[in-house]
């Protein structure tokens, strides 16, 4: 039979030599390799006690940002949704009522904002498209879940904590990748 690739190796079916049939030298050779690894540097880390530093271009879970007064930055302009190659983002816009100025930055805001994490490919095009620095990808992994229902992220999951009311949680959630004012 012709080999499918040039790298295919034929299995040798020669009878074993005496040295091989002795068995113990082979065991010893294998144990040598095993014990040799004890003195080598460990390539793994004790996650979650220790974490590796992320690459500066790592793209993780999306965050919907607020401004320094705690108002939502998103205006539901739909640019993230139209930029999304996986069509994971959907939203519904609403007009800000008088008296809601402390909640929303602009006169229009996203009443509903959803990212389907089953569809998201973490390409970061939503962050690039956003004209208001409202959505960005943080250095958090999207958590696993047992059901598919748990992967439809609404505003309760995506929105960052209020920097005025919960400054500690806000600082923790902000991360290093948040867009900073120039």
């Amino acid at each position, binding site marked *: 039979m012709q080999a499918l690739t040039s790298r295919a190796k034929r299995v040798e079916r020669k009878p074993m030599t005496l040295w091989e049939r002795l068995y113990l030298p082979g065991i010893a050779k294998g144990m040598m390799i095993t014990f040799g690894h004890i003195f080598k540097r460990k390539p793994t880390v004790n996650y979650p006690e220790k974490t590796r530093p992320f690459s500066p271009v790592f793209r993780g879970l999306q965050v919907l940002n607020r401004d320094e007064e705690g108002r939502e930055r998103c205006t539901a*302009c739909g*640019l993230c949704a*139209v930029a999304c190659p996986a069509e994971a983002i959907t939203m519904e816009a*609403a007009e800000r009522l008088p008296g809601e100025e402390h909640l929303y930055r*602009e006169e229009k805001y996203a*009443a*509903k904002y959803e990212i389907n994490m089953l569809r998201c490919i973490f390409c970061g095009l939503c962050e690039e498209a956003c004209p208001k620095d409202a959505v960005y990808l943080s250095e958090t992994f999207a958590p696993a879940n047992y059901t598919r*229902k748990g992967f*439809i992220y*609404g505003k309760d999951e995506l929105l960052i904590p209020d920097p005025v009311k919960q400054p500690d949680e806000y600082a923790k959630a902000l991360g290093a990748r948040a867009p900073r004012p120039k």
Partner: protein
Amino acid sequence: MAEEKKLFKVTIDNITIEVEPGTSILMAARRIGGEVAPPAMCYYTKLKGSGGKCRTCLVEVTAGSTADPRPMPKLVASCRTNVMDGMVVRNITSEKVIDARNGVVEFLLINHPLDCPICDQAGECSLQDLSYEHGKEGTRYEFQRRTFEKHDLGPYIQLHMTRCILCYRCVYVADQLTERREHGVLDRGDHSEIATYIKKALDHDFIGNIIDVCPVGALTDRTFRFKNRVWFLKPVEAHRECNHPKCCGKVTLWYRGEEVFRVTARKDEWGEVVDWICNECRFEKKKTSDWMIEGPTRVDRHSVISQGHYVGVVRPQEVVYDVMGGRKPKLLMDIHSVSEVNEPSIDLSKIEGPAHSTDFEPKKLTN
């Protein structure tokens, strides 16, 4: 037999075309089509007397005519200058024109708020296209911008005067389509604004057309306000028997799923209305059953409206039932059981005016 009319030969960007005497340079360029046609913000073919205000259609005339081949000393507004026999015009081939157009765009944007993320016109806005092509990244303007309070002109039309570029198109619509014009330009210079005197509602049967002619987002449809972005909607041509004698009843319906979010007049390739429609067609008939559907509108593939609109999609057949021996899959997820967006129970298109926080009930518990 009628005497054959003498045609004028005019060369625009090295393309020669024969047009009838009395044609403007802009219309001659539009007959050639494509990039040769200068952009126009204020000129509107169907409105008499429009044009000559925005200066975006400036062109260079390098030879006035065969009889007098001297070049014109300044750039001329192509919408208001008629062609002469043997005229040579340079539009995109002239550096002077491009430079002047960049300057005009910078002037138009001086007071424009550039709030495109909020503006309902975004995606079909002439000023957006123009500034995308000619605009600078930053602004050199350092002073306070002209701002106005937004207000409603009646139940259907919202006026954002801050976005206005004073093209006067809406004034001509009211003059030429309605018996009585109730809005106009008040004050002068930097203070001039489109307004009614004072805060009256515009309620003529054809006044809705000012939304379509507005090149920016100054006049927008209140029944569509903030409902959806135009590029998420699917335009479909439709018509109905309108009782209004002057209304043609031929419109474009903008669909999202099964819902008609808005109705506009049909527009040609230059973004101009093909035929005027009445307010009843535009604002009152937002059900599919009101209309005879003709087919999807042709959208330019460079337009953002064509984004994500797939043509000729064949939906694959559901094979789960066959594979499972007729049993329903246990783990198939209906997106509406989790998602709060696009809920079948809420028809955004049926809400009068923009949606508010009161229109969205608190989260109902699923799972």
